[in-house]
């Protein structure tokens, strides 16, 4: 044992800082690429698992003591991944000039994207305004915050027909209320909540010393808001925006279904599910379209994130001020 063993443990690698300092903030090229590859790999793994289950799973479903515990793996319940993609190229109905399933899904996606976007933007504006009002006046926060929370406990399914019903009788000047506006309104109704709560939390996050500093400058509320509270709220706003984007898409799709609005992904899902017992590939295509809409919105939020943080220094932590970073 005394023989000098070769130094198996190589000298510890230099602790690699995740972001090299020479790069401008926000630029993480290598990491981005790696993440992208990871996402693609994840999708491929998911497809492989799907096919694996199809290959070995019981075609009529598994039962344990008479209770169904495993889904059926036959072609109707679980079409092959390539069958789902193949279906996109087929015509919806066998008449000349009929759209392909893929074209229908794309059109429906575009319809839903527009509606969700209107809803998301409305939701963000309303959420931010509410948060600012609540941060400005304690009494507004006390009076409003409980209702903001309660608003989210009302089931969407119950709300959608009501909104459509009110909206149907509205004439705002020359503008007649359109059915899609009801859908956008419901999307906004879901989207405003995380923004209002997250933004309020962010606006209230500056530490006592930072606020005392602004007071020592005799800064007005507005200046304190602009120079301190607003920038401090950004790290809280970003995750809220992610939630809001997802909520807006879900809200729009569900609201399309429950208000019976034609043209969007929600309606397409209803249409395709009616033929799902014989051919479920189409339904999966519609669901795929919904997922892609969600991804697009996640991408939009990421762009917004880059825009909001490109000027920031690194090591940004919620709280607004840096603590001691070692000397």
């Amino acid at each position, binding site marked *: 044992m005394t023989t000098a063993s070769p130094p198996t443990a190589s000298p510890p690698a230099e602790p690699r800082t995740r972001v090299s*300092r020479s790069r401008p*903030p926000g630029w993480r090229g290598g990491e981005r690429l790696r993440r992208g590859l990871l996402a693609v790999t994840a999708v491929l793994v998911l497809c492989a698992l799907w096919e694996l289950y199809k290959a070995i799973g019981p075609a009529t479903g598994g039962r344990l003591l008479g209770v169904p515990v495993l889904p059926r793996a036959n072609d109707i319940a679980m079409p092959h991944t390539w069958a789902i993609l193949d279906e996109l190229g087929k015509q919806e109905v066998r008449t000349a000039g009929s759209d392909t399933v893929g074209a229908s899904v794309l059109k429906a996606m575009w319809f839903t994207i527009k509606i969700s976007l209107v809803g998301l933007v409305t939701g963000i504006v309303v959420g931010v305004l509410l948060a600012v009002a609540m941060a400005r006046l304690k009494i507004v926060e006390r009076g409003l915050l409980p209702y903001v929370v309660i608003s989210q406990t009302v089931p969407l399914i119950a709300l959608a027909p009501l909104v459509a019903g009110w909206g149907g009788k509205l004439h705002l000047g020359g503008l007649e209320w359109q059915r899609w506006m009801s859908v956008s309104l419901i999307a906004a109704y879901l989207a405003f909540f995380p923004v209002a709560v997250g933004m309020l939390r962010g606006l209230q996050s500056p*530490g006592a*010393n*930072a606020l*005392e*500093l*602004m*007071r*020592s*400058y*005799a*800064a007005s509320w507005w*200046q304190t808001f602009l*120079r*301190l509270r607003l*920038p401090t709220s*950004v790290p809280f706003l970003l995750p809220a925006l992610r939630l809001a984007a997802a909520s807006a898409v879900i809200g729009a799709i569900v609201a399309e279904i429950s208000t019976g609005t034609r043209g969007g992904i929600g309606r397409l899902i209803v249409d395709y599910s009616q033929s799902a017992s014989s051919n479920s590939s189409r339904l999966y295509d519609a669901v795929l379209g919904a997922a892609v809409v969600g991804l697009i919105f996640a991408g939009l939020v990421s762009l917004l994130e880059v825009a909001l943080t490109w*000027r*920031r*220094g*690194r*090591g*940004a*932590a919620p709280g*607004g*001020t*840096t*603590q*001691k*970073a*070692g*000397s």
Partner: protein
Amino acid sequence: MTSTTPPPVPALSPTAAGPAGAPPAVEVPAVEVRGVDQVFPVAGGGQTVALSGIDLTVAPGEFVSLIGPSGCGKSTLLRVVGDLLTPTRGEVRVFGQEAGEARRAQTYGIAFQQAGLLEWRTVAGNIELPLQVHGVKKKERRERARELLELVGLADFAGHWPAQLSGGMQQRVAIARALAERPRLLLLDEPFGALDEMTRERMQAELARIRHETGTTVILVTHSIPEAVFLSDRVAVMSPRPGRITQLIEVDLPGRLGPPGESGDAPSTDDAPSADDVREQAAFFAAVTAVREALRAGGPT
């Protein structure tokens, strides 16, 4: 706002170098605290007496430290002077103005234990913050930030982000920011409390130099006896609950950098005595002992 206060005249009196820090009668004191009580209500109905019967007068150009055990109200007193807290009773005047008026007139700059730099602003951007709030033009702001960064020895770091700086460097930026409006009074709340001992001593020497160069009146809250003795003309020793000033100790260290104009025994030029020389003389240790005994006499800590 109509009363025009006379400009500070640091070299007014030939006796200013004497052991008595008391200002000549004609001079308006930099800070005058009279009979200040600060009482905080406590949840459940009781109350905490944070300050009781505080009287303190600080002369223009003077450096006064507030020292005492945790909870003695020294930070509270600093906040009362800065009009960040309104005293329950008593009166505070800063350069002859009522405290709130003095705050709005930017008579003082303040720095805390946490540097509290805004992480989304560069070092220069942080120093410019007060100037920006007061509507100073961009070019002037840049210029002033450059001057101040030179003063605190960070001239090359204007474009850095706070997170890239060490704790000591961040604290220098915080002090530069406090000096941005050329305040006549600097309020420091344990500014070096979170730094290691070596950095701390270096920062103390820096602060002594900055004070010497700018002639600013300073009130420093600190836990550290050597820090108080090294920097101060007078040390106010405080006792806890209710917080009161039990003793005011004059500190006269030969060869130390004083306010500008008051050269003392030291040549005010480049070959000023090193900070270590000041810390190693008998007068320094004597003063440390005096403060320590005053603290002990103040009650259990």
